[in-house]
């Protein structure tokens, strides 16, 4: 099964189970969780079901295209089910069958792995799903996002697409994956991996990134506090950008343990403020359309 067929199968499978098929967020993010379709939608009472691919950038994981398993950018397939249905694990296992993985012929296990995103003020209870010792999915019951206790609880299923594809295609090197019947992963992404690794380890201007980090956060706070409200999405984008800039600085190895703690805290403060602003209008006037906030 090619990488794109895996995506098609998952989209079909989850669309058939009532999910809206969304698109990747168009800003640099480290994980599908940071997409507003997860981070903001899990807040508040309204049910929601959504699935999408999210290219995820982790600058520190860049390996110049030389490592067969590790990438500056990998692809997650993200499913959010709010509230989590009682058969959510079976539904997930069904999706593996849809990919041609027969769990009875393998060792498929749910092993404790709670998820936490310090930058988003979010955490959840869950498992990593292991397929013959390989982690292929992170499965999480969200408990908190943006520092806010969640009700109802959402289930988040995050597939590592490259990992699953390597398993299905029985290849040891990610660049040997067939993306389509004709084109290999190498042809699509290898040069990009090299260049982006080079950028984050050698070319990125650390001083500029420090400045950007401060200014992105400042801009996020500024728009969040702008009179008239309705600036949550704009502020959240700046929050995401500051997070990416932080990751670039981290990749350069120039952030110490304690500096890291302080920077993460700054991002989290903005993320929590964004989450508060997102749920606030809904608390005041649950049925009101967003226009009401203009008042």
């Amino acid at each position, binding site marked *: 099964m090619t990488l794109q067929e895996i995506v098609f199968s998952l989209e079909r499978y989850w669309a058939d189970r009532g999910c809206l098929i969304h698109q990747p967020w168009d800003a640099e993010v480290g994980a599908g969780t940071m997409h507003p379709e997860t981070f903001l939608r899990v807040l508040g009472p309204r049910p929601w079901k959504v699935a999408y691919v999210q290219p995820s950038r982790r600058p520190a994981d860049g390996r110049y295209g030389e490592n067969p398993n590790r990438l500056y950018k990998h692809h997650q397939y993200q499913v959010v089910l709010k509230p*989590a249905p009682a058969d959510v694990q079976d539904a997930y296992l069904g999706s593996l069958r849809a990919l041609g993985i027969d769990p009875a012929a393998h060792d498929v296990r749910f*092993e404790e792995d709670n998820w936490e995103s310090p930058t988003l003020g979010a955490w959840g209870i869950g498992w990593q799903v292991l397929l013959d010792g390989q982690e292929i999915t992170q499965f999480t019951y969200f408990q908190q996002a943006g520092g806010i206790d969640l009700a*109802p609880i959402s289930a988040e299923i995050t597939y590592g697409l490259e990992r699953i594809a390597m398993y299905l295609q029985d290849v040891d090197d990610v660049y040997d994956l067939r993306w389509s019947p004709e084109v290999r992963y190498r042809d699509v992404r290898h040069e990009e991996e090299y260049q982006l690794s080079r950028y984050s380890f050698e070319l990125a201007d650390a001083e500029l990134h420090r400045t950007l980090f401060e200014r992105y956060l400042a801009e996020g706070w500024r728009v969040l506090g702008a009179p008239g409200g309705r600036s949550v999405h704009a502020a959240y984008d700046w929050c995401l950008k500051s997070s990416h800039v932080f990751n670039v600085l981290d990749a350069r190895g120039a952030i110490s343990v304690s500096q890291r703690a302080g920077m993460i805290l700054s991002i989290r403060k903005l993320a929590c403020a964004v989450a508060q602003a997102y749920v606030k209008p809904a608390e005041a006037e649950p049925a009101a359309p967003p226009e009401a906030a203009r008042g």
Partner: protein
Amino acid sequence: MAEFLLEIGCEEIPAGWLPGLTQQLRERFLEVAEREHLDPTAVASDSTPRRLVLRADVAARQADREEPVWGPAVEAAKDASGAWTKAAEGFARKCGVSPEALQQGVKDAARPGDQYLLYVRRTEGRSTREILPGVIAGVLRALAFPKRMSWDAWIEDGKGSFVFGRPIRWMVALMDGAVVPFAIHALAEGRRADPVVTSGDTTWGHRFLPREAAGRPIRVRSGADLREKLRAACVLLDPTEREKRILDGLASVAGPAPPDDHGLPVEWRDLVEYPTVVVGKIPAQLRSLPTEVLETVLVHHQKYVPLGEGRVVSRFAAVTNTDGSNADEIVRGMERVVVARLRDAAFFYQEDVKRPLADRVGDLAGVVFHKGLGTYKDKSDRMVRLVDAMGAEMGLLTKPEHEAAREAARLAKADLTTLMVREFPELQGVMGGIYLRAQGHPWPNVSVAVQWHYHPVSVEEGSPPARAVAGGDATVFGAVSVADKLDTLAGYFGLGLEPTGSSDPFGLRRAAQGVVRVLLDFWSADAAERRPNLVQLVGAAVEGYGDTIADSASAKLRLAAFLSDRLRYVLAARGYPGDEVEAVLGAREPEALQDPHEAWVRLRALHSVRSEARVDFEHLAVAFKRAKNILGSGAGASVDPALFQEAAEGELHAAVGRLEVRDGGYEARLRALAGLRAPVDRFFDDVLVMAEDPRLRANRLGLLSRTLSLFYRIADISKLGG
């Protein structure tokens, strides 16, 4: 008698929780069932990752119960005319009967003459079936989890919202085969919604096995029936049975010598419902990786048991949640993961080892230790200076020890810039030691010190690196370990970032305990002049930061107090009574921090002698509390025997005089001091210390003061309790 069977079917519960939960299930049920008068017996519990199971014998119905309710005294029950008093009528009304229906009885067996009105309340036992739903709710609520989760659940027990360890997906609740009704509802917008779990007689087997029957409901009648049907459905309910299957499997693949299983079989047992051990191979070209690296990947990242001959790891054993029929394909997947990780590690090793570790020291200037405290290069430099202070100024190290410790301090942090440590941070220090050996560093004690300098991390005696460092190497290791930790502590305290309450984000408590442990357990010097003075070391560590620390006097004081507290903690953790620890740490001369190892020796002596002469020490403690209170008003001057008026004064003076010149170990001295009990007691009995004559008073205070100071060299005896 009836059998109660409860199976709580869950999504996968973390393996580490299962032993505790299994025990709790039994204990909480016993408590709740006894409270409900169900006479529970033969209570047993079992578990797998997907189920908690309890069976017990219970009474079919509660026994009828009688309990006495006491009213007013009989004399107060009737007035002079023989009519019921208001008190008696009120009591009868409260009991719901007429006064004539009340009995009389003796409330207090010690006063058989006093008769009281008595009402015997009879409670008819209810049927157990009616009570069990409440028992189930009580037990579910009472289970404690290391971490609980909200899963939008609700129970109709008056408490509503229901959090648990993992979502519950089915429940078997049977009394003698008949379903005990119980429901867990969904919680939607703060209110009860439809049931999500309804109890029944239906269980579920292994998720995927046996292939032809998986996913089909299984009806059960009893505990024994459940066990057997689950076995047929590839679920071994009894954890000991799973463990045995694992150990047998491991023995059959391990070869003649039993492998170091790193405690994994116990964890494996609770990770799966049907364990089958499989074996994978490690390609020959990856077996030459350092054992520590192989073990980190296999044991810590994959939970596999390394197998091999001698120090060469050539295979690994893993547990699967299968019947083994597809082992080949599964093992291929596992090997792929292991090979990928080991190949990464091999690449890191080859790259790292090309560059001498010493060359990396300069790179540490690019790695920030803390924004306010400079880089790791600065930290290394400070560590070297601290080691120099220990060697040259304080004379704690011999010349060869000093040279080795200085070299190790310089190199200790260099592995932070290696690829391996960036990938496997838990190997920091370890890789430095390995690379130094691989690159042929001439001094073995340097690589040992670098390898272990992040230790000790545990407060227990004998925990690592107890076996790894020994003899003269222990002092070299100790110097580097202490220099690293004290430097970190001094820096953070200098910035005012000490731990508060339960918050200790930089692990400073552990660092301080590490310092204490090194000084107690690893510093090999027996001679007092070669044992570190922690007050001096704190001073040197804080001063190492120069102007970076604004108020160095305050930082020193706060850090010293913090270390005292950690010394107290470590000693108490070793099982010594709190009052003995306080007594030893309360001694004025020498202060414990000036020689922690010596404080520990005093503590052991006090503990041993006090247990021989408990009564003597009780008396002395009381006397010394008095003495301290009296002396609080002013220390005594010198003692002039000519001013003695009572025999007790002379007697105490003579005893003190004999003891002041006595030598010997702490135990011998404490034993001799215990003999002061009689003269001290007599002194307090016969002598008025606060005499009106100021000269007499000063003389007596002086004698008391001298007596106290005999003890103060060992322990403040007044701190001892009864």
